[in-house]
């Protein structure tokens, strides 16, 4: 059996790591940054849809009554989702259809919790934002 040659020595590896660690970021292009912004928006939408699935499963038939334990979660979700959707729309980025439905419809008419969870997974919830 022919032994596989070692691709590089330890000192070469350390030199490579020095280069990697000391390297200053290059100048970014606006187009790249806009793609990254979309990635961020998408991650936010994934988290919002994921949270919507949780809220939907809590009370499938009604909005939370005043004093309900999850009323504050509901209010926070409404605020964050509205802000995110408005920013996306203004910047010309798409809004996830399920998120748009949740914003447009009363909670009893939202998509099912399972549909929302599927959409959240598709968008990358729980695994970081991916473009």
């Amino acid at each position, binding site marked *: 059996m022919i032994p*596989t040659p*070692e*691709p*590089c020595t*330890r000192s*070469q*590896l*350390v030199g*490579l*790591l*020095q*280069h*990697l*660690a*000391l*390297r*200053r*970021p*290059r*100048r*970014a*292009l*606006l187009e*790249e*940054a*806009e793609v*990254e*912004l979309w*990635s*961020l*928006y998408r991650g936010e939408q994934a988290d919002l849809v994921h949270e919507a699935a949780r809220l939907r499963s809590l009370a499938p038939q009604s909005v939370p009554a005043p004093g309900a334990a999850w009323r504050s979660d509901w209010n926070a979700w409404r605020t964050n989702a509205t802000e995110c959707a408005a*920013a996306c729309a*203004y*910047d*010309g980025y798409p809004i996830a259809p399920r998120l748009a439905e949740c914003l447009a419809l009363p909670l009893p008419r939202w998509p099912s919790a399972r549909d929302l969870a599927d959409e959240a997974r598709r968008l990358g919830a729980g*695994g*970081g934002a991916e473009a």
Partner: protein
Amino acid sequence: MEPRARSTRRNEVRGGDLPDGRVDLAGRVEPDCIGAPLEAGRAQETPGDAAAAAAAPDWRAWLVGSPREVLARIVPGDPLGVRDAVALALRAECVFLDADRVHLRALALVARGAARYRGRPELATWLAAESARAVAAVLREDGEARREADGAFAQLARPLGLDPDALRRGCTAFNRLPAADRVAFFALAIWNRRLDDLVRESGESATEIARRARRGLDAVMLALQPEPTPPARPTSAARPARPEERP
């Protein structure tokens, strides 16, 4: 509101920068560079304007509008010095990451967070925090299987005949080590500090520092090892013949 005249000072090669785009970490990235364009903008102000500027800080010139509008202001020429903030954040964390990826994430976070920024904490502190968030986010994602044909790992690894995924594995393993181990390895192997100096500064024994650095070395050495493969199922040629198969 449109941004004021942008200074070119930030884009000049300073003492801490190397010609190939790296940053010399033995030298310092200028900590006050964040204020450069703001000072340039104030140069044309009257004393009355200065008082008004104190009440309405200049960050408003860069961080107003939608995230995409903010990006359009802060990416060309890097007027806020996000590159410097990212370089400092990577240095502070002692991690091996794709600096360009962290930079892009930091730009996006700054643009997205701009609407919520109200001048507190001061701009440099806020940018440092957003850069640290970018480092943390990319560290999280590096735990996932990501294969980028033209990523920094691939570009750096291939000339040495290294497998980019193996290099990533080594770097990821290193990045998961305790901070003390990472700092020791960076100090000795990356910044070429003297062990005696580290002993004097840290109060730890030379043996302990060397042990920490060794753990860092062991982690990055994963980059030189082939990807572990699951044990192969025995083939008919390799397995012993069944009694009925024997001649």
